[in-house]
């Protein structure tokens, strides 16, 4: 998910580590309350990155998010958006420059889909043609056929469709920054999974700087370039890449929050393309089976069909494959599913690129570059 090159990585786009949003010494204490909702906090969100704010209920993650667009005014500190101090500018104007998507979606029931999406462009005074074109473009972008959905009312949409419109509405005026408050929290698990996948694809196209509140660690690991773990009393406990948070929790609290499933979760962060895979030979061509390499039987187009020879195994197991673009998690899934201790890794053209053994998972996974653990 994150590039193995620089540390810490600045998001998928690989842009320099320039903060798009910076909270400087920001804190929030509600009137008549002793303890702060958010303790003094410094947080920089790099341009083009997805930063996940995570923590238990009442830990201040949503408060932190809402201070970024000043729906909640901070008690102390400065908010810097793209280099500009926005702590004291007109809050309504500020919010028109920041996309905002919430869990309850909040589509206006008396407006149709097109008018809902057009709310911010209208406030910004765009002309009618530009708004129509933009609405069309956005609906298409979030996977809703404009001519089918433009004129529908929110009550005529499913939960997933509503949230797609919600995302389109947040993107309407092409803000550089999006704030998302558990946008997929109220959606059924299957739809949520699909929306998350689409969200990542979408982010590759739009490359926004995104702050995303969640209480779901899997979601944080899946979507985040960085994860900010909040603890009780609104304290930021750790702010790092998902890999780092899972592997090296900053303190006992984070370790407990990350929990016992951390090792398994980490598998989904490790891309197969980053591993040093065992070499595999192809029957009938190349170096041949002599030097003890595993051998695959391939069809005419070079796609593997079965194992011919696997060193150390008398009876070759049935062949299972996993795409090179997948993660170790996928490889494990395939191996468990096929009840076999070895999986062939294939590229996009289904040509064999190597193999991964079960033994290697519990032994030493060799990765290319420095990120060996």
């Amino acid at each position: 998910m994150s590039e193995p090159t620089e540390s810490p990585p600045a998001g998928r786009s690989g842009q320099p580590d320039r903060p798009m949003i910076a909270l400087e010494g920001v804190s929030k204490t509600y009137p008549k309350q002793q303890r702060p909702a958010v303790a003094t906090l410094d947080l920089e969100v790099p341009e083009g990155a997805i930063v996940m704010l995570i923590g238990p209920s009442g830990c201040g993650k949503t408060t932190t998010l809402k201070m970024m667009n000043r729906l909640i005014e901070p008690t102390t500190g400065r908010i810097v958006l793209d280099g500009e101090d926005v702590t004291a500018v007109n809050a309504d104007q500020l919010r028109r420059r920041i996309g905002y998507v919430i869990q309850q979606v909040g589509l206006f029931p008396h407006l149709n889909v097109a008018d809902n999406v057009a709310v911010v462009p209208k406030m910004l005074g765009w002309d009618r043609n530009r708004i129509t074109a933009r609405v069309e473009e956005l609906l298409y972008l979030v996977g809703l056929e404009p001519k089918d959905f433009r004129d529908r009312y929110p009550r005529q949409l499913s939960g997933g469709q509503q949230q797609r419109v919600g995302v389109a509405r947040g993107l309407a005026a092409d803000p550089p920054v999006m704030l998302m408050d558990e946008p997929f929290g109220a959606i059924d698990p299957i739809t949520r999974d699909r929306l998350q996948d689409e969200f990542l694809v979408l982010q590759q196209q739009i490359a926004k700087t995104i702050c995303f509140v969640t209480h779901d660690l899997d979601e944080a690991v899946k979507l985040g370039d960085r994860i900010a773990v909040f603890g009780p009393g609104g304290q930021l406990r750790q702010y790092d890449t998902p890999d780092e948070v899972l592997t090296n929790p900053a303190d006992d609290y984070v370790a407990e929050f990350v929990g016992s499933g951390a090792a398994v979760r980490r598998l989904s962060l490790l891309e197969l393309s980053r591993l040093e895979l065992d070499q595999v030979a192809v029957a009938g061509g190349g170096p041949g089976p002599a030097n003890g390499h595993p051998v695959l039987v391939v069809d005419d187009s070079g796609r593997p069909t079965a194992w011919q020879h696997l060193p150390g195994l008398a009876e070759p197991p049935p062949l299972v494959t996993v795409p090179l673009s997948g993660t170790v998690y996928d490889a494990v899934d395939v191996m468990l599913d096929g009840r076999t201790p070895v999986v062939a890794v294939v590229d996009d053209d289904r040509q064999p690129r190597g193999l991964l053994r079960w033994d290697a998972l519990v032994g030493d996974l060799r990765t290319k570059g420095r990120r060996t653990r």
Partner: protein
Amino acid sequence: MTAEVAPPGQPTAATATASGPGRLWRNRSLIVPPVLVLVGLVLVALYVSNQQLDNVEQRILDPGDLLDRLGEHLLLTGYSTLIVIVLAVPLGILLSRPGVGSAQTGVLAFGGFMQALPPFGVIILLAVVVGAGRLGATIALVIASFLPVLTNTVVGLRQVDPALIEAARGMGMSASRTLLKVELPLAVPVMVAGIRVALVLNVGTATLASYVGAGGLGVPIDSALKLGRAEAAFAVSALVAALALMIDWLAGLAQHLVSGRVS
């Protein structure tokens, strides 16, 4: 008073999935009241025309005179309701703003107190204070029908999903724009329901205006009763009832239209 048309919440939900039979049923429920009223009026007219009317009764039931009284009655109702709307709606909006807090309870309690005052007493009292005539009667009607508009404005605005307001503010709508573009459009069906109640209350209460010389359909009823002409009193009362039903029907129609649009 409002029994014959579905309560405000229901058509809202139903419009979304309006299927054949449902639409038919709702349309029928919109057509039935005026038909019934018309049939009732015709029956009363037939009954009255079959009676041997004496001089007094003829004078009471003189069509031209009745029309004048009807006009006065409608003006009293219309003005008082208009004043109620102009006063109660802004007050209701004010009371629904965050930060008003406990003032809301206080004002609503005061509204309940005013509602509890007997209109007849208020009309007489105001005649003493501001003098007999339309002014006192109109004020009395305003007092009598103030509460439903006020409460429905507050309730209508309060029932708007807070997530919608958060979404609106989060996208950069100012507080006043949120009120105009989101809160009020969504509160309108409930507010119209309150105005409808006020209208119907006023149509009925306006019959009492005759006691302070403010005219209206109370005048012929009053004279018919004083002169012991029961049939004439009955006929005019039927006219008032029909008027109330028709106004309720019209307001219901308006309510149906706005809730259909907003749902």
